[in-house]
């Protein structure tokens, strides 16, 4: 019997007849059915064409007001609801690295749909990397071939985005620089991956850099929107 990594209840999973007769190892889910049931997936057809939030297929009010670069589209997989907040808190802030595996199968599936030439995870600054011991986005992308195309700028004590309001977030300056020669991105379709899309400021800064480096198209994928 496996314990749910989030709520710690034992998930009483019954084997199906198929699994019994198959004689193959059974892959246990890391979360219980109740927690999995609380996930709110966003369907690509019912999402804003700019930021990927659950919406009609038109642009949402935020994206009508501001989206630069304007040809950048983000796909968000889940609503950033209570369960996903709990997940991110345990994964990122408490540093429970086991949780990277929860969404990996789904993320691989999403990444493959983009058919991108390069997959670039959003980097974290050196101090956080040192303290946490891992980059949470790279952890989510563990089974995917990625390139470390970006790095954070050495700026003195940046305030984390999560500590700012919307206006302050939108004003924040470019936090990244290229980690590879610009030629690497020339005429390439690049997919940038991050954990959460909030105002879009972070991932759109990254997109601008890669477009300026000569990428033919830059797309975004985030685990959550909210």
């Amino acid at each position: 019997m496996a314990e749910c990594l989030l709520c710690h209840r034992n998930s009483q999973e019954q084997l199906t007849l198929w699994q019994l007769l198959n004689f193959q190892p059974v892959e246990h889910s890391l979360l219980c059915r109740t927690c999995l049931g609380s996930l709110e997936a966003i369907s690509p057809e019912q999402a804003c064409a700019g930021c990927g939030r659950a919406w009609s297929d038109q642009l949402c009010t935020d994206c009508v007001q501001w989206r630069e670069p304007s040809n950048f589209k983000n796909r968000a997989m889940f609503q950033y609801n209570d369960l996903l907040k709990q997940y991110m808190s345990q994964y990122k802030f408490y540093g429970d690295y086991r949780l990277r595996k929860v969404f990996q199968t789904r993320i691989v599936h999403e990444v493959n749909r983009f058919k991108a030439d390069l997959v670039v995870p959003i980097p974290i600054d050196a101090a956080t990397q040192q303290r946490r011991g891992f980059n949470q986005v790279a952890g989510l992308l563990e089974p995917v071939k990625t390139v470390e195309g970006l790095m954070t700028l050495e700026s003195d004590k940046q305030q984390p985005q999560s500590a700012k309001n919307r206006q302050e977030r939108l004003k924040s300056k470019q936090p990244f620089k290229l980690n590879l020669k610009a030629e690497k991105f020339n005429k390439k379709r690049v997919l940038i991956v991050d954990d959460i899309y909030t105002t879009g400021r972070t991932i759109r800064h990254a997109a601008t850099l890669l477009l300026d480096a000569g990428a033919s198209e830059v797309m975004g994928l985030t685990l959550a929107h909210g």
Partner: protein
Amino acid sequence: MKEKQLFGRQVLADTMSVETNQQSRLIRRPAMIETSQWVICQRCSQKTTKQEVRLPNSHYYCPHCFQLGRVTSNLWLWSLPEPNQFVQCAASPLTWTGELTPAQDACSRQISDIFAAGKTHLLWAVTGAGKTEMLFHGIAEALMKGLRVGIASPRIDVCLELAPRFQAAFSGISQIVLYGEMERPYDYCQLTICTTHQLLRFYHAFDVLVIDEVDAFPFAADPGLNYAAEQAKKESGALLYLTATPSKKLQRQERQKKLSVSYLPARYHGHPLPEIRLKLTSRWRQSLVKKRLPSPVKTILRKITSNQRHFLLFVPHVKDLEGVQSALKYQFPDMEVATVHAGDENRHEKVQQMRNGELDCLVTTTILERGVTFANIDVIVLGADDAVFSTAALVQIAGRAGRKAAYPTGLVNFFADRQTKAIKEARRQIRFVNRKAQKEGLIGGQSRG
């Protein structure tokens, strides 16, 4: 860091500097020990396969106790030996003036001896026996000697209910309450009241450590917390477990003479425990779909409401709360009803409303099974055959009725679709202790107000 902050504590860091000249006395232990396959956390003792918890920077972390700050294999646990820097008082610091019954007094004396001798002991006393009061004399003696005392419980609610009682009983002693969401920072005090999780931050600190509700979740199920209790006390320190419903494991330790026990089968007010009445229902969840309570439940509720009594109604799961509430509202429109569960933001307010008599009925999950006292209530369990209701849970729930000397009786009605082992065992336990109390002459003659 101030040296006082480190007395008997274990703090996680890669380096540590302490004010004044204590630097040489600092104890430094590796936070994790590695074997070829395993890593073993030195804070909570749990072992994990390396492969499961390897970080990309090739260190390891403990996945069991990260809520208190993540332990990784490159860190150290730092402490300073507990120096007992407390003011010694000439007179007893006990400001409680109540009296113990002769049976309580006998247990109280045994506890004092256990504290003085630094032994491990179990106080097994029925719900509403007055366990806390039995501790007071032993703790007063310990405090007088300048010893450090800790009271821990797996449940926050229990800690929060105990704290003001200890504050009142030892008004001159410095006291701190520690739990996960507290706002006040840690402070070095002679008397610490905390959740059992917080014990993970102590190292050889307490001369006397009491674990209240020792059979409650998560302490009973978590070997890390058992280890934390052992490690939070000094090697020579006393450890006292309190419960009304000891686990099979504790009972076995008693039989094997590994653990000494004081036993009190009667409540302080000298009335027997209300016995459990069981009525069978048939598919009660289906009746709820039609907004109807099963008819035996309705009959009992009529009786309760006509006597104008308040009651707790326990259900197995959070998802049952709403159905029961709407059926109650439909069939008893005048009744003031609220529901409560562990994740409820207004949990403390609703419990307070129930205490104030503003609610007729509080529909609840097992979170109110123990550690809470309401003055004059009846108790109902719907779906008592559900697996969430262990024998201990059922005995604790039944123990919510008739706790106060002014209102020593109350109805305890269980409804279940079938009889279970847990129900049978709970009824048997309550009958057994009542009979035992009767035999020892603890029931009837000696009630006090």
